[in-house]
């Protein structure tokens, strides 16, 4: 492994713990997380991240090692929730516990508890807030390695594979008409409820969706 090129600094000189909190909080909220309730612990983690920032130019997770391979290292830039969505949803926190799921009352209960889900476990992964997806629209979400199209018809949400079986086009770029999404490339139609298409043998996978406390969760199997 050779050393990677220096990363362009992402934060201004003299970045503080308060700066990092202000920057991270809004978008971890949209992922269904918030800062741990253990404020001393949060400050300890963020102080470590600032040390790492000074040394490397970016805020890498203090509990995971940088290998020098940029493709691997980008997966541990804080918040690393999108790269580990299933594991963290099951653990109800990110690896180091800086962030906890929004509905966890006491983050102290999760400090140090490491129970990574086994392969094959079903996990409800938060993907967005109900208000983020207007009725009649469809958008792409990524959970781990799965590319998923999330559709909203009225107040119902549906999740199906984002990849059209014809020419592998992204279905979330297509047009949603009622319960049918039309592929943007050649017009194949899929029922978002069942993944069914009229083309024999070309149905796509669907995923169970639940809505809880204004949050949309897609159920996936941990691989």
């Amino acid at each position, binding site marked *: 492994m050779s050393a990677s090129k220096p990363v362009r600094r992402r934060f201004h000189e003299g970045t503080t713990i308060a700066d990092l909190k202000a920057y991270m909080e809004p978008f971890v909220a949209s992922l269904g997380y918030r800062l741990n309730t253990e404020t001393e612990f949060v400050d*300890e983690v963020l102080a*470590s991240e600032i040390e790492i920032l000074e040394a490397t130019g970016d805020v890498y997770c203090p*509990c*995971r*090692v*940088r290998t020098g391979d940029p493709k*691997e290292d980008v997966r541990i830039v804080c918040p690393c929730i999108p790269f580990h969505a299933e594991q963290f949803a099951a653990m109800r926190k990110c*690896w180091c516990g800086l962030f906890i799921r929004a509905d966890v009352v006491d983050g102290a209960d999760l400090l*140090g508890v*490491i129970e990574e889900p086994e392969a094959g476990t079903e996990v409800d992964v938060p993907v967005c807030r109900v208000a983020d997806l207007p009725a009649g629209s469809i958008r792409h979400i990524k959970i781990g390695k799965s590319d998923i199209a999330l559709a909203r018809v009225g107040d119902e949400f549906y999740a199906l594979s984002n990849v059209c079986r014809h020419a592998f086009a992204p279905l979330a770029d297509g047009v949603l008409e009622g319960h049918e999404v039309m592929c943007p490339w050649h017009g194949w139609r899929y029922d978002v409820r069942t993944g069914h298409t009229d083309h024999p043998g070309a149905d796509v996978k669907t995923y169970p969706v639940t809505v809880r406390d204004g949050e949309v969760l897609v159920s996936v199997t941990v691989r």
Partner: protein
Amino acid sequence: MSVMLYALSTCPYCRMAKKYLDESDVAYDILEVDLLEGAEKDDAVARVKELSGGTSFPVIVVGEEVIVGFNKKRMKELLGL
């Protein structure tokens, strides 16, 4: 029984694990992987990956058993504390 703690100098859980071992009077070796350089670091990262299947810390090796993360319960069991 040999106890090895693979740690990062920046990681709060590694500090917790170290403190727990110290307070429990357990003899152990520690390797702070992020403080290594060059081939030595690459070797240590490769070893951690082989042991734990990832690059998350701490990795605590008790005899033949491997604990990933600061899992106090598991440490207690394996160390007979």
